[in-house]
């Protein structure tokens, strides 16, 4: 439906200067997770000059702290915010509000925006947030985008409370009623969420994709074990595929392969329940195939600290080849 194509490469963030010496905008977000500022620190330590910072100040993170103003000052200091930088106070599960705030922030620069170099750290954003941001940035159309992602050292606690599956705004796809339904599940560490999406969609074909190799050996096979009930279904297990947990472009390639195989017979929906880089892969895939749908199980309750420590930080360099 669109002519958008996205190419990209992955490298350690320590090598970011190979691709980007100056960034017009650095986008990040605050969090109680320790990894939230790793992308920022590595970028600045490696000499990338940043003109302006736009930081999401999630209300839920600030509310969860004992001393809100002290916590806010700590985040201001971390990102070395000055007057020209912007803090966007938004709710963590309201990505549409997040996008609106961002658009308001850049509206004066919009005419020349396609030439801007944006460095976006999505490590601690919830997935629908960066899905919607990327959709918007792809329509501008931006030429290049630089994404940062820091792996956690350990996961602490996952979502709490019940969940509700919804289409990610902007990614409802377009269904052909003559086709059957296929659901691609990028497996994560919470088996309940995969089952919830499966029940919501009731697909004729389910294809699980496991993140392998994992970030670290300690995570190996964990998503398989956590999704044991799902994978006990023979018709689902036989379709199991693999994509590297840290590589969005390889994930996109796996999704492209599935798409080529099944597109004629099935409407494709993707549920990005795995790692954020894998989710990014599904986002890039859906941007190129706008008839495909992305479903996300929204948790009802926010958990301020879902990971501990940090691991590798990656830079993903993306080029939008947009003919619009």
């Amino acid at each position: 439906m669109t002519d958008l194509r996205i190419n990209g490469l992955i490298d350690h963030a320590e090598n970011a200067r190979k691709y980007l010496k100056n960034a017009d905008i650095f986008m990040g977000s605050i969090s109680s997770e320790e990894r939230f500022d790793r992308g920022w620190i590595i970028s600045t330590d490696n000499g990338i000059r940043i003109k302006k910072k736009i930081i999401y100040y999630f209300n839920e993170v600030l509310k969860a702290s004992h001393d809100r103003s002290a916590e806010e000052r700590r985040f201001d200091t971390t990102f070395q915010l000055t007057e020209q930088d912007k803090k966007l106070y938004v709710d963590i599960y309201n990505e549409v509000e997040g996008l609106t705030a961002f658009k308001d922030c850049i509206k004066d620069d919009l005419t020349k925006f396609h030439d801007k170099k944006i460095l976006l750290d999505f490590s601690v954003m919830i997935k629908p947030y960066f899905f919607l941001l990327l959709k918007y940035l792809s329509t501008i159309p931006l030429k290049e985008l630089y994404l940062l992602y820091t792996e956690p050292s350990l996961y602490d606690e996952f979502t709490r409370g019940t969940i509700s599956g919804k289409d990610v705004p902007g990614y409802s796809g377009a269904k052909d009623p003559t086709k059957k339904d296929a659901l691609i599940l990028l497996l994560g560490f919470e088996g309940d969420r995969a089952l919830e999406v499966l029940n919501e969609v009731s697909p004729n074909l389910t294809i699980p994709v496991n993140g392998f190799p994992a970030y670290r050996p300690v995570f190996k096979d964990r998503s398989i074990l956590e999704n044991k009930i799902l994978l006990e279904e023979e018709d689902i297990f036989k379709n199991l595929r693999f994509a590297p947990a840290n590589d969005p472009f390889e994930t996109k390639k796996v999704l492209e392969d599935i798409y080529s195989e099944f597109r004629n017979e099935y409407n494709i929906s993707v549920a990005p329940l795995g790692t954020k880089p894998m989710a990014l892969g599904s986002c890039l895939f859906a941007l190129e195939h706008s008839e495909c749908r992305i479903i996300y199980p929204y948790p009802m309750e926010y958990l301020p600290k879902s990971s501990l420590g940090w691991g590798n930080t990656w830079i993903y360099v993306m080029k939008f080849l947009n003919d619009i």
Partner: protein
Amino acid sequence: MEEKNEEETITQNPFAGFNASLMNDEDIIKFWIQPHILFGKQAYGIDLTGSIPVVLMGGRGTGKTMLLRFMSNDVQIKNHISRNRDVKKFLKKAKYIGVYYRFDGTSMASFSNRYVSEVAWETLFKHYFELIIGQKYIMMLFNLKKEECIVLNPEQEQKLVVQLLNIIDPNTKIEVNENSCLEHIFNLIQKKINNVFEFVNNSALSKNVQFEDYILNSGDLIFGMPTIIQNFIQEIQGKNIIILLDEYENLRELQQKIINTLIKHTRLPVSFRIGTRINGFKTFDTLNQGEFLMVDADYRIIQFEDILLAKDKEFRKLLKKIARRKLELIPSFKNSNIIDINNILGHINPEEEAMIVVFGKIMEKQEIEKYSIDKYILEAKHINEIIKIVKKNNPKQSELILRQIIYPQNPLIEMLNLLLLKRDYKIEEVIKLFKTYTIGKKTNIDFKKYNDLYNKNKLGLLYQLISLNKPKQKLYAGFDVFCMLSSGIMRNFLELCYQCFNTALFSETDELFGKGRISFSAQTEGAKIRSTRVYEDTIDRIPEYGNEIKSLVRSLGAIYSAWQMDARLSEPELTYFCVDKTSLSEEARKVLDSAVRWSALQQKKSMKGKSPGEPLLDVYALNRILAPYFEISYRLRGRIGRFTKNDIESMMFGSDSEKQRVVTKLGREPVFEEKITLIDFLVRGDRSED
């Protein structure tokens, strides 16, 4: 190759894969069993194929989707052909033609965001729903044409297309030529649906997105197209066109109002069948102020779980037929004639189970006669409990008394004697009642009294006997028990079978294929797996008030379990509670509604309170499938006195200490000292660790 297939089917579980949403048309036909309970007069005379709209209400897995899909034209035609009938006669025989559509919850939610006003979303959804059903009508025509049920010559088709285009989009310029065929209409509608989704997708990015297309009004296509189609196609004239809408609970309130309005003002030949969970109607209102859907006036209702449970015998017959159909499809079962689920699961009565608990097996009469009474008195734990009381009351003659009230032929009788002693019956009276009963003087009033006490309490006594003999566990086995555990939900029964066949196929193949039986222990294991999954997975995933429902269910499990161990067994087999719902907060009422919608609780007919003058109370039973998890009864026998607002709301929303307080207040302290306390139960919250 054939050999390999045969080998593969040996280990295939006949009950794997049975979610009707995931089945193809052929599977729907293969596994379809006509539920006479629903189609027959028992469903209060409701005509499922007639012109009055019908709401099919039931929990997940009750068979709504199977029924709705079976009624769709796609499956009906294939079913007709599969019976080697002349396809041209399909429409002659058909009373209705059904079009099926399932509301996908994740998509329905996307018809809403703050960039677009509710009025605009209302207009857009009306337009979208018209297109969806309009496209379903065209697909129905494709299907009828492909199977040669109707004949449309090109000239007729062109004229039909012109008239249809006129209502789909009067602004479209119409040129009648060879391209004016039904495919053209189909593609036009698809284009319009794509426009809707483009708007939905872009509306998340900007508030300035415009929707530029001809907007349809409610009923334009839904009622307009069938009239035109019937005018052109003689074979369809006089048939009801039934729109089969599944998973109505996935719609937003505004979306339900739109469709409620269509149902209220339905125009023949169109009628609706709505599949929904219990309490799946978020509103009965229509878009017209002060107007709402009225049961019986605007629609009939079939409550699946109620009907299936009420017609217990019919439900059993239905389950037997479904199981037989599944078993017959696997050659290794069919060839060995292992196709009767009643025989495979068998039956065990409480007396037999009590023997297994005490002796480790079912004992024949002669075996018991040879059994050493001294050894029995020494080893049987429940006899030890009797000894304690007898010794306390009459230390000198305890041995003599004991021998007058023991009855190894049926340990449950001994348990009843123990219960009577705990209820402060005099020993002489117990002996008298017991003797009259065992002698079998049926005309004697004492026989009747003892017999009534026995029948009322025997299952409760079995639970107490088992608790004395830990780690022995209650068996949940036998066809009758599986039917009861199913709670009127077919999927529960099939899942129970699936789990116990898994165990049997893995570790009991000789017994299964040799004797055609699955052991009671394998069945119990299967029942526990299913029960645990319902508690730990299904209830956990309930999107609305899942935490509160789980909290309530856990507290109920603890209370019921505690009452089972009540020393006087004053209310055996407690499995339901009463509450005046009107006294509860709105939030608590919503929790109860959601629990019923997701079948964690099942609402029963209202009943009078235990105290005089109490109003009719709302009655809720814990879904019986949870009985193995909590090791409680699966029968609907006893009820606790009325829960107050504070009781029930503390169980839903209270802190851990509040929950503990309520559970302790409403429960009963255990009869035997070694039993875990209520607090332990709550704190641990997970009996699977036992």
